[in-house]
């Protein structure tokens, strides 16, 4: 017994010694490491060339939409490179400063402050969620910096959040839900509609868009089921929808919520008795969900790469992207990054300066066709008026290749009639 205790004792001492050593090494190494790493951020400030055009680009590189964010940044870089290759603005080159907003509005606000205070950016473009976009908008425009937003929201168009420096390249939920709804309702699949709505502004905005579109077809609402944002399990929300027996189910949610709800609706066998409609049917979510789960789901999109068959600029854009990404085509949300930065740079070129006020005027006068056909910004709310695609998810058997996930059913041409009126948004004009 005593020998065992002795052994234990020595063991204990040895462990302590080892820990002591480790601990010291750890302190030394970490101190050195910290010093080296910490020197980084101060250096950037001195080395920058004064005359570059700097565009801040806060996107959620970490978090569930990391791959969308990376594509947005990659596409934005294409726009930068094109601009520089064409000689820039009287020789002034452009530079993209990508920052990680982590999909958190607080972090995004801080990153935007960094971009403005430390990097002295001329413009800000980016973000991938309504709350983040509103935060960036608040911080940038308050300081007279133009912000071109590339994620969906109705709120940003409204007079309370809009400023003259606010621009919105992405579509808004009113457009997408309106278009997807109009397409689905017009096909005489029945009059009964159910809504599954994520409980945040964006979700309710989509439902409103659907209802406006449904008026002229006399659609009848049989169920409105609200679910918490980022719900994991939709099984408790689906029975009520099934009991209501709708002909069409409108999914007013986004991204992972959309993926999870479609996945679980599919497992409940709901797709056999009703048509699923998703206003923002995402390319990447479809890749993550697989063809079987999404088969037959109808939705709206800003872009699908097969648009290249009919639109020349789409072909040019796709080819440039493919060249850099082993032949993979760009995604819908990635394309927003290209258009958002492209529009800013083109306006700066037109204005002959990067000062905010003249560029705002140039943006308002801008007619551009970067990747999907003609676009322009509406005067009152700076919403990009653009075409909306109606797409349907293909079954695995109909896919030509792994990227061929959607069939473009219709292209609704750009028109202000898709938007809410300026008065409805609280604007005077």
């Amino acid at each position, binding site marked *: 017994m005593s020998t065992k205790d002795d052994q234990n004792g020595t063991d204990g001492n040895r462990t302590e010694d080892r*820990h*002591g050593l*480790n*601990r*010291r090494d*750890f*302190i*030394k190494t*970490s101190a050195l490491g*910290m010093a080296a*790493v*910490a020197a*980084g*951020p*101060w250096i*950037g*400030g001195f080395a920058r060339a004064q005359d570059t055009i700097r565009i801040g680009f806060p996107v959620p*590189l*970490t978090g569930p939409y*990391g791959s969308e964010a990376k594509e947005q940044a990659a596409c934005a870089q294409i726009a930068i490179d094109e601009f520089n290759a064409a000689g820039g603005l009287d020789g002034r080159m452009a530079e993209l400063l990508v*920052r*990680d907003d982590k999909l*958190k*509005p*607080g972090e995004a*606000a*801080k990153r935007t*402050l*960094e971009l403005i*205070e*430390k990097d002295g950016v001329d413009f800000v473009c980016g973000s991938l969620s*309504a*709350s983040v976009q*509103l*935060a960036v908008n*608040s*911080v940038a425009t*308050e*300081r007279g910096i133009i912000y071109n937003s590339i994620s969906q929201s109705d*709120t940003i168009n409204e007079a*309370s*959040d809009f400023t003259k420096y606010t621009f919105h390249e992405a579509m808004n939920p009113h457009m997408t839900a309106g278009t997807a709804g109009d397409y689905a309702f017009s096909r005489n699949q029945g009059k009964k509609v159910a809504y599954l709505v994520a*409980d*945040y*502004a*964006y979700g309710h905005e989509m439902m409103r868009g659907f209802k406006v579109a449904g008026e002229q077809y006399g659609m009848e609402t049989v169920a409105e089921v609200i679910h918490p*944002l980022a719900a994991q399990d939709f099984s408790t929300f689906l029975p009520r929808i099934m009991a209501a027996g709708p002909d069409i189910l409108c999914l007013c949610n986004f991204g992972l919520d959309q993926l999870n709800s479609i996945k679980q609706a599919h497992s409940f066998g709901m797709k056999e008795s009703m048509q699923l409609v998703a206003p923002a049917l995402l390319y990447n979510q479809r890749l993550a969900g697989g063809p079987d789960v999404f088969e037959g789901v109808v939705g709206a999109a800003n872009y699908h790469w097969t648009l290249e068959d009919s639109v020349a600029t789409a072909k040019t854009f796709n080819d440039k992207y493919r060249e850099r990404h082993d032949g993979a085509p760009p995604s819908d949300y990635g394309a927003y990054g290209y258009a958002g930065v492209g529009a800013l740079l083109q306006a700066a070129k037109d204005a002959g300066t990067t000062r905010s006020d003249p560029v705002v005027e140039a943006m308002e006068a801008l007619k551009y066709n970067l990747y999907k056909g003609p676009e322009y910004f509406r005067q009152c709310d700076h919403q990009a008026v653009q075409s909306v695609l109606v797409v349907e998810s293909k079954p695995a058997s109909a896919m030509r290749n792994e990227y061929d996930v959607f069939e473009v059913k219709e292209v609704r041409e750009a028109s202000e009639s898709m938007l809410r009126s300026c008065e409805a948004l609280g604007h005077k004009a």
Partner: protein
Amino acid sequence: MATKNSRTERLATNDIPISGRRVAAALHAVARHRVLAVLVLLAIFPWLMPYKALAVDILLYGLFAMGFNLIFGYTGMLSFGHAAFFGTGAYATGIAMVHFNVPWFGAMALGLVIVAAVAAVIGLLATRTRGIYFAMVTLALGQLVYYAVYQMTELSGGENGLRGIQVSELSVLGVPVNLLDPVNKYYFMLAFIGPAIWVFSRILASPFGAVLEAIRENENRARACGYNVAQTKWVAFLLSGLFCGVAGSLSAIHLSIVPIESLHYHTSGLAVMMSLLGGMGTFFGPFIGAFVFLLLEDVITNITVHWQLFLGTLFVLFVLFLPKGIWGTLLERLGR
């Protein structure tokens, strides 16, 4: 640098060389005049940072972690619900300014009253429990506040967060100040955080502070000595919540928005991380923790998208090898 020359091994054997002793003496001096020392450093701090918004952030989260440390480090109760006070302070101040046009100082005062009420209620329920249960009750109650504010869409903006806090023309004692200017904003914040640090220091030095530490070391003995443990815990919880509320209130002015995430338990987790990193139960620990955490996060985020790998590893290493945190370990090494 004197510290560089002094070998760490010799420090460990208590054979402190002259240069080391000088550092120790300097640190002693800092510890004696801790409020003054910290104020001098804070006055020049923004120019030491890569950008000034980060300096403001470190200040705010330092105050948040300091308030949290009163309950965690000094009283020994691990709370996962302190985001409720940070967030409530931010929302109450912001909502008063945006929806009711209350001037900023009135809005801040109102924010503190509301934080006090929330902290009083949560404290009453939570301080009845101990240990892990305390952590869980505070987590649950904190999340209830989160959902409650989330559902008050008309006032709080819900998921979109609260926007529209105007800070470009604040009147400070009749003088208009533009807080969009980062330097103005920093000193505006310091004008609140400086006195808060002083008050915190007074609380710790008071008999009340001694009772708190007595409870942390041995609750039963403290009770046997005739102290009202339950009431002391509750008061400590309330005070702790108030400091976090001030930090939140200032953060609303700092960002001119209030994101819903400020109420989420992840924000509570930040306070835990910062306190641990800096040194729980030490006066400067939370500020140093906030400084290291935010600076490292800022720097690593710009280098790699895998920043969580580094922060997570660092955290694990700290728990294993430096449980007293940076400042706590430094004091232990040199302070004796």
